[in-house]
């Protein structure tokens, strides 16, 4: 059981539920795949399959175990269940830097999170597919993009964004959402902001590390984790430690160490 402090690292370890949101095909699952497996699949099928992944992130003072919840495509017909957002301590809202409408959609998700999720949720806005822009992505700092189009582009205004599309240089730069437009929005809403490339790995680990650092210590105490019924002290309160571990019933057949 990796939660227990005695496992292998002396650092305190906490679980963080992270939900992943964004328009279809912006690369949500690819970002997670890069983070979890350091892997990338070209032309990945829409997400069906793994939608609940875990990955550890080691900080100087503690270890954060991300429980990453993918939407499994349930966002398509506005059918995400309340349990998807419930108790999420972090959210990754992803858009595609080559597709202005995906930023509009991302803004909807941010509003939805502010309405539905826990008040203290840490939200990171992430512009993915940086490899398709001239910024390339080998510079992990994601140098500021040219700002020309963002000056004219109204927030969430697809018409303006399409105008910007026409102004694109013929250099092969597919960027249609400027860094400044998105970062200004992120600043206004108090979001973390990154541009990433899941394909070549730019900034992916940085996003998760930044989220891990931004999670307040206080919210980690109530983190989700392995709480076995057997280890509960008599009369202990509050109930976080009084959770019943269903795995106990089939201890013989259940895989060892699976307790989340």
């Amino acid at each position: 059981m990796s939660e227990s402090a005695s496992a292998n690292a002396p650092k305190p370890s906490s679980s963080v539920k992270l939900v992943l949101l964004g328009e279809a095909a912006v690369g949500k699952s690819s970002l997670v795949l890069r983070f979890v497996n350091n892997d990338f699949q070209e032309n990945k099928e829409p997400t069906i399959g793994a939608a609940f992944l875990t990955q550890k992130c080691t900080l100087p003072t503690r270890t954060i175990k991300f429980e990453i919840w993918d939407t499994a495509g349930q966002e398509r017909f506005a059918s995400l269940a309340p349990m998807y957002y419930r108790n999420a301590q972090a959210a990754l809202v992803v858009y595609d830097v080559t597709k202005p409408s995906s930023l509009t959609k991302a803004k909807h998700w941010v509003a939805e999170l502010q309405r539905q999720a826990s008040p203290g949720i840490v939200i990171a806005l992430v512009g993915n597919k940086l490899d398709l822009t001239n910024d390339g992505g080998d510079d992990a700092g994601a140098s500021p993009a040219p700002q020309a189009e963002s000056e004219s582009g109204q927030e969430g205004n697809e018409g303006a964004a399409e105008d910007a599309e026409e102004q694109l240089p013929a250099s092969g730069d597919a960027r249609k959402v400027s860094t400044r437009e998105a970062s200004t929005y992120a600043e206004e809403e108090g979001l973390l902001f990154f541009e990433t490339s899941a394909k070549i790995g730019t900034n992916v680990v940085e996003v998760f590390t930044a989220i891990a650092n931004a999670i307040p210590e206080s919210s980690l105490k109530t983190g989700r984790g392995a709480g076995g019924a057997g280890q509960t002290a008599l009369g202990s309160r509050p109930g976080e430690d009084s959770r019943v571990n269903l795995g106990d019933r089939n201890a013989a057949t259940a895989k060892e160490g699976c307790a989340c």
Partner: protein
Amino acid sequence: MESLSEHPWDVIIAGTGLDQSLLALALSRSGKKVLHLDQNSYYGGSEAAFSLDEASEWMNCVNQRRTPFEDAKISNHQASPQSASSQVDSAASELPQGTPDNRPKLAASRAYTLSLSPYFLYTRSELISILISSKVYRQLEFMAVGSWWIYSPEPPNAESHELGATRLFHRVPGNREDVFADSNISMKSKRTLMRFLRQISKPQDEEEQDETEEKEDLSMPFADYLSSNFSVPRDLQDPLLSLSLSQLAQQDTSASYAVPRIKRHLASIGALGPGFGGVVSKYGGGSEILQVGCRASAVGGAVYALDTGIQSITDGGLSSESEHPVEVHLSNGETIRSRTLIGSAWDLPSIDQPSCTKVSRSITIASSAFTSLFPVTTEGAPVPASAVLMFPGDTLGSPQSPPVYLQVHSSDTGDCPRQQSIIYGSVAVSGPQGHALLERAVDRLLQAEGTQAIALWSMRYTQLGRLSNGGTPPSIQTHSPHVYSFPPPSLDLAFEDETVDMIKQAWIKIVGDEVAHDEFMIFEDREGTSDD
């Protein structure tokens, strides 16, 4: 895919109750192309769980639509609990600002998760088995259901030192140790109780070998069975009845219903840890389980659309040559085709409403933690988050009535903020009489706890569904070779295992012989989902 009519479906499932959600999960993992719809904008149908705001919204439309509910009404006691002024319906935020107000208050709407159909699972339930075998339990958190209590208006001990509500409640002994320790039971009664408990907790095969006990007659009323076979005195019959969770009056409960359920109760204690036999899912009970089921089903490839009802069905029937003979017209204007359609009677417009039992229910948010109802009674046991209270009809001035059950959820269930509790009431009496019984029971509990315990908010409603009766198990109705419906939703307080068999039967009807039937709900962990 942006449109539901883009391609035909193998199965359309209408309604997102637990039965439908588990069926969707099973089918999605058997390679079926599943579309799972709900006419509501929330999951769960009659098993949904709501915030305060969602509950008001629900109440406003449930009385006007074809639903398995009637007569829903919310009372907000917040404004002025003591002086009962004119502000009864005003919200918390409208209280005058400035003056310090130390009265207990409702928290924000979303701090609450109120279940329309609250139930718990016994630890040996088949449902727990499939939650484990399908691996969806990883996304759920469970809390223990602890003690059973019987309301006894006369304090059992004149010199009782107990504080809180338990002054007027007698804890039901759930095992032999409890019986020994119980100071309210006479030695003679203890002996008869022990004999009864020993008899019914015998393993099945041992019982069969025992010639003398073989011809036990279970057709008689449970009360007669206890008196004639074990000489259990009257005052211990209600406590035993409460362990069966029978929602019928004592004289109407048969031994064939009660005895297997008391066995289930006793056999469950300790199966998942010491000191408890039941568990309740955090954050809205069954609603959370079905949502996790739907999510896992989506991971398996099913497509989910809320707010999408079925307006009409055209069934090609037997004569149809089509591979997808069922044509479904949706509320969003789309027309879709499917090989099979299955849903609840309330989700399929062409299906007549099945005959139902009606129960009265209430949900009360109380300004007390009721700490004394959640004792840890065995060393090493988790702190229970739920307790079951039974009020025999005669203790509420209605001797012929079925008992009232209250399930009290502490804040550890995640259903409400700290220092508050949710009281879920249920009685198998419909109409004003049922609501009056519930109100009386909740009042008795609040009074027993003391003056600081008040109702902050409450909702009552009449719910239509099915009570397990120990007879015919629930089954899927076949309307044509392609259209099936589920029986009415369960009104039981503990999950009845026969439901799992029914879901499996529905699954078999649809997958046929394509899949080995013993693989029902057994899935491997997906890559990356387990701990390292």
